[in-house]
């Protein structure tokens, strides 16, 4: 039996209509995320990465192409993949605990059970003691971890992360990378991680897909065959970085 990919994209095209006419954003993107694989999408800002995630999460439909999530048609269908956008988007009027149980609440899981499930994970996500705090009381790194816990509580095997650490300082970011890998190794979801940070992609991913400028195409797919935890200063990492920079035409 052939295992279906966690996410399979076949020849995805998407254009947006504006005053100048049609602007092509995605021009024939094909890629696969295998079950339990961590894949990064690396590309310049504004290349259409977020549009691609919106297509996978079912918010917008592609003009052409196929989206399959664990073999199911995912075009225009929400709820098959958990999505964490760039901003943490925590609701300021809810405590951390009530924010992270949001996906369970929408699935109509009884509140007591949802809370119990979230409380059991607070320690792992570094939020213990802050269950009853409001988002405004948290630091930037904690807010991202809370947003990530909300994404994990969704109970989807497929997790889409859109530059989750893009707004954080370098030190907080490096700490969160280490932490994210321990969480990922514990739960082993299939991850599609969007970034424009080459080192971040190198430290985290099993495989890196390089996207071109808009309209986006897949320029190259580079496997990172290196045991974790990785140091960005490792000779192999530096060699890969050179290769990636070449693909990005930098």
């Amino acid at each position: 039996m052939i295992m279906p990919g966690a996410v399979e994209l076949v020849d995805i095209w998407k254009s947006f209509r504006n005053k100048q006419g049609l602007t092509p954003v995605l021009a024939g993107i094909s890629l696969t995320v295998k079950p339990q694989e961590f894949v990064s999408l690396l590309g310049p800002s504004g290349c259409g990465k977020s549009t691609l995630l919106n297509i996978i999460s079912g918010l917008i439909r592609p003009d052409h192409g196929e989206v399959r999530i664990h073999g199911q048609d995912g075009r225009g269908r929400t709820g098959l993949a958990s999505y964490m956008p760039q901003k943490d988007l925590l609701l300021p009027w809810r405590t951390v605990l009530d924010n992270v149980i949001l996906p369970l609440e929408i699935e109509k899981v009884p509140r007591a059970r949802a809370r119990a499930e979230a409380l059991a994970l607070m320690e792992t996500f570094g939020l213990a003691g802050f269950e009853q705090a409001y988002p405004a009381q948290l630091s930037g790194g904690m807010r991202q971890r809370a947003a990530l816990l909300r994404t994990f509580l969704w109970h989807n095997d497929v997790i889409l992360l859109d530059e989750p650490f893009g707004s954080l300082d370098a030190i907080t970011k490096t700490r969160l990378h280490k932490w994210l890998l321990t969480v990922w190794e514990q739960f082993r979801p299939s991850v599609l991680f969007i970034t424009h940070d080459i080192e971040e992609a190198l430290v985290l991913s099993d495989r890196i897909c390089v996207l071109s400028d808009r309209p986006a195409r897949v320029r190259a797919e580079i496997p990172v065959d290196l045991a974790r935890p990785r140091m960005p200063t490792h000779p192999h990492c530096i060699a890969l970085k050179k290769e990636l920079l070449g693909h990005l035409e930098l």
Partner: protein
Amino acid sequence: MGNNWWSIAFTGLAVLGWEWAVRFWQIPRYILPAPTEVAAALWQALPLLVEHTRFTLAAAGAGFAVGSAAGMALALAMDRSPLLYRAVYPLILVSQTIPIIFIAPLLVIWFGYGLLPKVVVAALVGFFPVAISFHSGLAAADPEIMDLLKTMGAGQWTIMRIVKIPGALPSLFAGLRISATYGIMAAVIGEWLGASKGLGVFMTRASHSFLVDRVFAAILVVSVLSVGVVLLVNTVQRLVMPWYFRQYRAD
């Protein structure tokens, strides 16, 4: 709270100046009474004022309840239906150009001299700030959060309940504060034009008899009532949205 002391001190000084000026120039009581005379009039007319205040508060309270409930309902409906919004919103704005002082006599003609026309005036006046501010609060909901909830499989009403309504509460309360104070004023205006009880009646009677100290006493009561309802709305807001008043950072 430190800032309040300045305004209290300034008010005290102004009242002292008023007292002194009235005595110094020997201004007659029927032109401008001194603060002490106003206080004496207030004390003397207190039982009567309490009786009239009950009617004004009843009209203002009922009008505020009806007006703000209707305002909230319309804001929700306009948010759900862009067509309704486009049809009704300009009309609501234009309706505010009609002075309430012209409508009140009509209401007396239609509904008589009882409590009802005052309730209607207070409701009409209270409706607008609530409808407008609650609607703009609903419309300001973050589209990204709504998209996120959609990817979680939430429908329109779930998004309304979880994102839009809680997010619009600060604007709603801003509107409620305005409506509550307008409500008192509207009830008084309604009473001017024909009633048997209420602070408006007390005021017109006093001014017709040149009992200016009583007019001032009534003004004082109306002010205290208006401040009182604002404090009441603030208290309710603190109970409904404690998060709003607890926004400090841990780091």
